[in-house]
């Protein structure tokens, strides 16, 4: 594109020469195989087996934050959803909705970030779409990605298979992504500046599978944090999930920031953490395999005490409380 173009204009989504220039000069680098460019549909040769397929939209504000940006999030978030089905991420589509006036250098940074994230996930971007809407009709950039992956587990991973006695393993500390977004949005200056934990999860799932561990259920901790993920697992399994609160590792600064803002730390978003439900026989081995990332045993499934399955926390003081899902309103856009 000519050097005089510093911002996205409506013509960049018009299907004409301006759009062709944008694709050729900015988006072509997203594609590992540029032969996919210019086709109506990517033609893929896939391995035999069961495929996982998922899609997700990304509207996070701010577009760039400590430890990541909307581009990185859009690639890794969808790749992680595939990993949670026990699938090795293979291919990704990327649809961009750009707001008129978006600074070109920002778009270039996001594209570079997506290229890097795709490489880190081992996923290739094979098709895409670009639209430009008038100023005020979007908030900078919206991204939608869809991904397919090859399932590498012999049994389906599904929370309905959770049984009383199964163990809950958490892959690392909690709250980094949520705290990074809150700090950026509210201009909060914390002593501990933590970056988002946004990172691919497939390497850890692959390590489990290669090590002979087959998780009963997996859930990545995104919006709503550990609280929401566990509430969904409890509901789907019909079991109570009982956690030892003292075993839950909070990222530095999370406890203080949440006390200040009146938030439950266990509802803060994460983008590089998951909870695995494992049979008691495989839990120790899983902990050993995931030890390098800081995985810890945090609790176990129990027969439901009441009609409604619950997530219960044993506190440091020896009392017990509920951990419910967060209602989610008032929540800034975090992913």
């Amino acid at each position: 594109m000519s050097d005089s173009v510093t911002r996205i204009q409506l013509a960049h989504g018009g299907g004409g020469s301006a759009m062709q220039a944008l694709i050729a000069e900015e988006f072509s680098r997203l594609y590992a195989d540029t032969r996919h460019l210019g086709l109506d549909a990517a033609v893929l040769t896939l391995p035999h087996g069961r495929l996982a397929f998922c899609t997700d939209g990304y509207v996070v504000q701010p577009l760039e934050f400590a430890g990541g940006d909307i581009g990185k999030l859009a690639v890794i978030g969808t790749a992680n959803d595939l990993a949670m089905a026990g699938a090795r991420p293979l291919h990704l589509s990327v649809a961009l909705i750009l707001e008129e006036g978006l600074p070109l250098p920002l778009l270039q940074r996001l594209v570079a970030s997506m290229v890097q994230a795709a490489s880190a996930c081992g996923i290739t971007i094979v098709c895409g779409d670009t639209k430009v809407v008038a100023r005020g009709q979007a908030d900078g950039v919206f991204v939608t990605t869809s991904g397919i992956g090859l399932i590498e587990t012999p049994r389906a991973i599904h929370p309905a298979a959770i049984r009383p006695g199964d163990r809950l393993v958490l892959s690392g500390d909690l709250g980094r992504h949520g705290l990074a977004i809150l700090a950026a949005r509210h201009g909060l200056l914390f002593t501990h500046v933590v970056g988002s934990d946004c990172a691919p999860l497939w390497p850890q799932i692959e390590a489990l599978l290669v090590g002979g561990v087959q998780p009963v259920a997996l859930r990545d901790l995104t919006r709503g944090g550990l609280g929401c993920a566990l509430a969904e697992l409890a509901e789907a399994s019909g079991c109570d999930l009982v956690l030892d609160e003292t075993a839950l590792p909070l990222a530095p600064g999370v406890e203080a920031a949440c006390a200040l803002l009146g938030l439950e730390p266990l509802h803060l978003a994460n983008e590089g953490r998951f909870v695995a439900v494992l049979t008691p026989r495989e839990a120790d081995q899983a902990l050993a395999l995931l030890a390098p990332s800081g995985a810890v045993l945090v609790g176990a499934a129990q027969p439901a005490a009441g009609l409604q399955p619950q997530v219960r926390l044993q506190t440091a003081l020896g009392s017990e409380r509920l951990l419910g899902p967060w209602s989610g309103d008032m929540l800034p856009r975090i992913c």
Partner: protein
Amino acid sequence: MPDPVAVRSALQALHQQTNRPWTLMEVCGGQTHTILRWGLDQLLPPGLKLIHGPGCPVCVTPASTIDQALQLAARSEVILCSFGDMLRVPGSRSGAGVSDLLQARAAGADVRLITAPLQTLDLAARHPDKQVVLLAAGFETTAPATALLLEQARRLAVDNLSLLPAHVRVVPAMERLSADPHNQIQGFLAAGHVAAVMGTAELEALVQRHRLPVVVCGFDPLELLLALLACVQLLEAGAPRLVNAYGAVVRSQGNPAARLLVQQVFAAADGPWRGLSPISQGVLQLRHPYRRFDARLRFDLPLPLTAEELGPCRSAAVLQGHCKPPDCPSFATACTPLHPLGAPMVSHEGACAAYYAYRR
């Protein structure tokens, strides 16, 4: 995370020194939240009962004030601002049409969430063609920040900013509860943050009038247990006194600069709390030089005079400590944080929300 050793030692002392049954009220919603969050009530001696007080300013804002905020938000020239929790508090027409400020925003009103009153000054400067209205709720803890805003607005002669006042005073509500012949309260854990601003003189007067022990109390589990212990010691000794168990934060004179500012801008008046009939000296009204910033005068709205009943919601009884949230037939069925019938289910500090979050 509280220090479990210190907590265990405080609990042990409490168990050793509690010889008779006592019923105490923690006044502030933040304290109720800590009690439920940490399950402190599960750890107390069996005869020691806690009842939850009305100390949540969001919860006690009259529904008619919310109705007025909705009325103002519906005007095309108004930018209506308030704090997060206030946006979800239902007005009197709960369930039908636009019943809270978030619904008003979805219907096209310009409703903004702010985190500090002074932000509205900037909004007013950036939108000279608009009328910025702040729905300002809070106890004496937040009143100084609102007073500071009005003092700035007066100095700068800002004419497109006004206040829909919903500030309330805590000690008059404690006075009302103490004077109620049906009350079971034998001692108070007072709200530490209010005392940090107002000092302890009016609490001292309350002790003298009602011969009830009052302990100024903080908000973390250990602070609560130590305040409970102090209150039980006073009761067991038959010595109703005021004790400041939050000395690291509260001085007996409070914060003189903040008090002065509040007194300069506001005057205490009789007024309703949601679910309660008018409380003598229970609300703050703007004083004369600041009246021109009163949105009720600017937009010709009446003062809220009466408390309203809320149908199947028993929040009035909850706010007076007559029942606990799970005793309400609507609790966690018709009334949830997403569809609150009463304000104690809305606010993070409301007793119903605390029970919903931690105990069902």
